[in-house]
């Protein structure tokens, strides 16, 4: 033990005498370890840490499938049947998001709420901080109790221990608080309040209305496959019992963990791979530095051997230095990771689950220590083996006879640099692919013009607005008030703005076409709009007309359809004047005339193809149909010449004038919809470019080191060449050729690696193949150029060799 400590002490002293070497090594390692630790902290929080529920692996989501393999929400009656007939579940719960208004001091606040079935908390297996979940029967009739989240408990109630039993007023209604959930209880999504459903009070009795998320807890020992088969059997039985609504309906089961983390997984795995490559490159660089240092210490090592040091002791001395440097690199890396994590969380695109839990904790620290140990071994072992394998007699003999050792060392260093270059190329290709992807996504026409548009969201239901009439009147008054703001050209509203914020869809029939067989219905996304929405957001009119003020409740029902719908269901024929109805036609059907065809809008995201859409005026919806949507927060759009900063307070004032207790949320410029849609790729691009740049720099340092060493080794040869009349340019070319030879070998291997690993990036790419020849060529050229630059200094130095000095040194 004391010997080990002494080795460490000597190592530290020796490193302090080479501060440049120590600094470069520690910085290189810190960057590698820091980047890995930072990304791991995200991976740990998002992907690895178990969900904060009891036995989360037993939780699965169940969704319904319908025509064409589409997956969607579940109808209330179907959920109740699954709950009562399914045999694989310990319990099943349903939930649905809602927006609620909380009024206190200052601005009214919108809180994100969820309506849930009574046994929701029991099924989820969450331990409440205070109080209880909902009791059986509390989800029937008008809800009167609420469970609040920790954030509200702390912010609004000062973490009062006696909060249970107090009353909370939400959207004008009073609820008795019965429990408090802990932070991190993010199902369904981030919520602040949970209310029981009012089963039996609304459209939940309609089997054709699908708006619930269903969660099941498997019985112990039951696997997801058994559960799927079990529910599929129930679904088939329901299809027989209710052919009109359930024919063609199937089920799909997804583990909750997979659903929560799924969208973030590919990017995080790619980034983990990228930082691992950076670390490998850093290791190769440090191993190279150690090898170079070993040359300077050859004599010392030989002396130690002559004094009786065994190979293990010699290797141990090198390993002690590696350990000291790794420890320093690890500590600095953890500090860097701490900063990087803050930056990552700040830059992370919306939608990364559990991102608020990202941080440096015990697991992350343990990870940093483990990778540092592996790194220390990885870069320490190579020079240690080299040192241990050295023949001490070589070092005591003249330079001329050490050629074999020197060649071996040079070969080893070259191999390390080739590895660095090839790994750097893989990263560069990845970064370039994402640069191209973001560029191409940026060039995608979203189908609307967000410039000059401001959007925000409101919840429509409250105690004051309990029915369709009052809700729609409120909606109309808000639009009217918005239109009255000076500088506003158009204003309108819609359920779900473009680019992936949500969708409402259903089947429809076209007059004159034979009715579709059950399970073969025509589906479209419903855009339920108010005011002058299509014109406001800049949807293009292809034929016919837009919706007008005159298309009111009493007027003939009308709709707009998009080009995708015309292509798919009208075979490209002119649909103007044709009539459609929602659902299957019967005697009560309302037929709506197609009065306009609009351009396709990418509602589901920039990378998703446009889907068939029907724009319907909200004013022409029957009260029963409206009830399906009343709980969903509605989005407003305002097109104005007034800059956002001046318009926003005007919008707030306008809404307050209609209802002083109405909170506004997501008030922002609509261009943010586009930037949000690009955020995931932009984030991945930023990090990959950063890691690619780091890899490029490290690889360039590696090439420079090897070439500088090669030139110093060839001083005599270069001196002879110059003495024999070689042109300085040819000497420079000689060195450059050698350096570029190494680089090209690395690039060749890197291209093979990039082709092999590129498919892992596929899910992040858009309109660019992982094997895109231009991308591969650009990355290879960049790396060749940087390698050439790295060779240039040693090459120039080679031309400055004084032939006489070079020959005298021998």
């Amino acid at each position: 033990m004391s010997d080990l400590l002494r080795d460490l002490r000597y190592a530290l002293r020796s490193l302090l005498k080479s501060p440049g070497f120590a600094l470069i090594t520690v910085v290189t390692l810190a960057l590698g370890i820091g980047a890995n630790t930072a990304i791991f902290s995200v991976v740990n929080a998002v992907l690895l840490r178990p969900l904060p529920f009891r036995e989360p692996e037993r939780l699965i989501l169940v969704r319904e499938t319908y025509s064409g393999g589409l997956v969607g929400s579940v109808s209330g009656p179907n959920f109740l049947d699954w709950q009562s007939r399914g045999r694989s579940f310990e319990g099943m719960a349903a939930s649905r998001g809602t927006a609620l208004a909380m009024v206190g001091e200052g601005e009214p606040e919108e809180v994100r709420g969820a309506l849930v079935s009574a046994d929701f908390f029991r099924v989820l297996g969450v331990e409440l901080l205070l109080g209880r979940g909902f009791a059986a029967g509390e989800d029937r009739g008008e809800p009167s109790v609420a469970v609040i989240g920790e954030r509200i408990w702390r912010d609004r109630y000062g973490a009062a221990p006696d909060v249970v039993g107090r009353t909370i007023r939400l959207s004008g209604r009073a609820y008795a608080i019965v429990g408090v959930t802990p932070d991190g209880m993010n199902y369904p999504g981030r919520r602040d309040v949970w209310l029981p459903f009012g089963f039996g009070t609304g459209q939940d009795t309609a089997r054709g209305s699908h708006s619930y998320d269903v969660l099941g807890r498997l019985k112990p020992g039951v696997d997801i496959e058994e559960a799927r088969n079990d529910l599929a059997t129930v679904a088939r039985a329901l299809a027989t019992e209710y052919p009109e609504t359930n024919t063609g309906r199937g089920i799909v089961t997804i583990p909750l963990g997979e659903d929560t983390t799924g969208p973030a997984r590919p990017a995080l795995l790619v980034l983990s791979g990228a930082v691992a490559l950076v670390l490998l490159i850093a290791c190769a660089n440090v191993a190279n530095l150690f090898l170079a240092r070993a040359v300077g210490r050859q004599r010392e090592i030989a002396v130690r051997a002559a004094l009786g040091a065994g190979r293990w002791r010699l290797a141990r001395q090198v390993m002690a230095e590696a350990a000291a440097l790794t420890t320093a690199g690890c500590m600095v890396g953890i500090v860097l990771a701490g900063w990087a994590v803050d930056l990552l969380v700040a830059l992370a695109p919306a939608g990364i689950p559990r991102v608020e839990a990202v941080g440096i904790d015990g697991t992350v620290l343990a990870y940093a220590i483990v990778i540092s140990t592996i790194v220390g071994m990885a870069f320490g072992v190579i020079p240690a083996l080299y040192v241990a394998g050295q023949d001490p007699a070589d070092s005591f003999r003249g330079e001329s006879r050490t050629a074999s050792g020197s060649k071996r060392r040079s070969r080893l260093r070259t191999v390390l640099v080739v590895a660095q270059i090839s790994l750097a190329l893989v990263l560069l290709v990845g970064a370039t692919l994402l640069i191209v992807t973001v560029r191409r996504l940026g060039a995608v026409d979203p189908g609307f013009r967000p410039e000059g548009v401001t959007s925000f969201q409101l919840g429509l239901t409250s105690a004051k607005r309990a029915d369709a009439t009052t809700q729609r009147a409120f909606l109309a008054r808000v639009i009217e008030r918005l239109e009255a703001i000076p500088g506003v050209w158009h204003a309108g509203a819609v359920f779900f703005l473009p680019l992936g914020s949500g969708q409402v869809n259903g089947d429809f029939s076209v007059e004159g076409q034979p009715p579709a067989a059950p399970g073969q219905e025509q589906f479209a996304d419903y855009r339920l709009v108010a005011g002058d929405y299509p014109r406001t957001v800049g949807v293009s009119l292809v034929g016919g007309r837009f919706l007008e003020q005159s298309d009111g409740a009493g007027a003939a029902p009308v709709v707009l359809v998009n080009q995708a719908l015309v292509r798919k269901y009208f075979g490209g024929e002119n649909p103007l004047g044709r009539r459609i109805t929602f659902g299957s036609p019967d005697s009560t059907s309302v037929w709506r005339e197609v009065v306009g065809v609009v351009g396709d809008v990418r509602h589901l995201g920039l990378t998703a193809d446009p889907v068939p859409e029907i724009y319907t005026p909200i004013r022409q919806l029957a009260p029963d149909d409206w009830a399906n949507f009343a709980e969903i927060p509605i989005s407003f759009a305002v097109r104005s010449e007034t800059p956002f900063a001046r318009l926003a307070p005007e919008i707030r004032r306008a809404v307050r004038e209609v209802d002083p207790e109405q909170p506004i949320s997501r008030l922002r410029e609509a261009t943010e919809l586009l930037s949000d849609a690009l955020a995931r790729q932009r984030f991945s691009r930023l990090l990959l470019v950063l890691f690619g740049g780091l890899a490029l720099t490290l690889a360039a340092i590696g090439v420079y080191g090897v070439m500088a060493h090669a030139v110093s080794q060839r001083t005599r040869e270069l001196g002879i060449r110059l003495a024999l009349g070689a042109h300085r340019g040819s000497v420079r070319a000689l060195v450059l050729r050698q350096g570029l030879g190494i680089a090209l070998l690395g690039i060749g291997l890197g291209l093979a690696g990039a082709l092999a690993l590129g498919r892992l990036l596929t899910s992040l790419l858009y309109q660019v193949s992982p094997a895109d020849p231009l991308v591969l060529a650009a990355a290879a050229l960049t790396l060749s150029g940087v390698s050439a630059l790295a060779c240039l200094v040693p090459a120039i130095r080679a031309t400055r060799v004084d032939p006489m000095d070079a020959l005298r040194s021998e």
Partner: protein
Amino acid sequence: MIRLANLERYFEAGPTRTYVLRRINLEIREGEFLTIMGPSGAGKSTLLSILGMLDNSWTGEYWFLDQAVHQLSTKKRIELNKKYIGFVFQKYHLIDDLTVYENLEIPLSYRDVKPKERAAIVAETLDRFQIVGKKDLYPSQLSGGQQQLVGVARAVIASPKLLLADEPTGNLHSAQGEEIMELFTRLNRQGTTIVQVTHSERNASYGHRTIHIHDGWVVEPAGARAV
């Protein structure tokens, strides 16, 4: 103590074999002070490295204290080196980053001498070589003579039976050189077998016997004074 029979050392470069030592037959008795002389590149230092078990790429027979070194593994040879052999180098080869004390301690640590015992031996050696005052200095703070004194002290601190010295006074001025040679003579009288490589006739005169090597061959076998 040492017997070499037909020992050869060569380097191979492609089809060419370059001999550094040819058919060396040599016997060194315990307590002897042997000098090896010869022009540069004759193979003297190579022979010293082989005797010190630092060079393992040779053919022939090497007997050391009745053990057939040619049949031993590298590990066993290192063990022999550790146990019986000390080295003194022309360029001293003290380890720059270590103090005098630590340089002396190194061979003992490689021989797994316990720390307490080690401290006692180092203290005794510092005293014996009269360098107590220098124990905390680094090699760069010492003169050439002082460095070589420490080099010799380091070579003998583990009480080797055989001391191998490669041009031990090569970098010293004559007075310092004589001091070192006197020291060798004293160590030899105390029972240490010494083999030195030198170009100096004067240094050779301190030994009992001199052999000459030329182009790898021993050209002038033993002709020397009595032990």
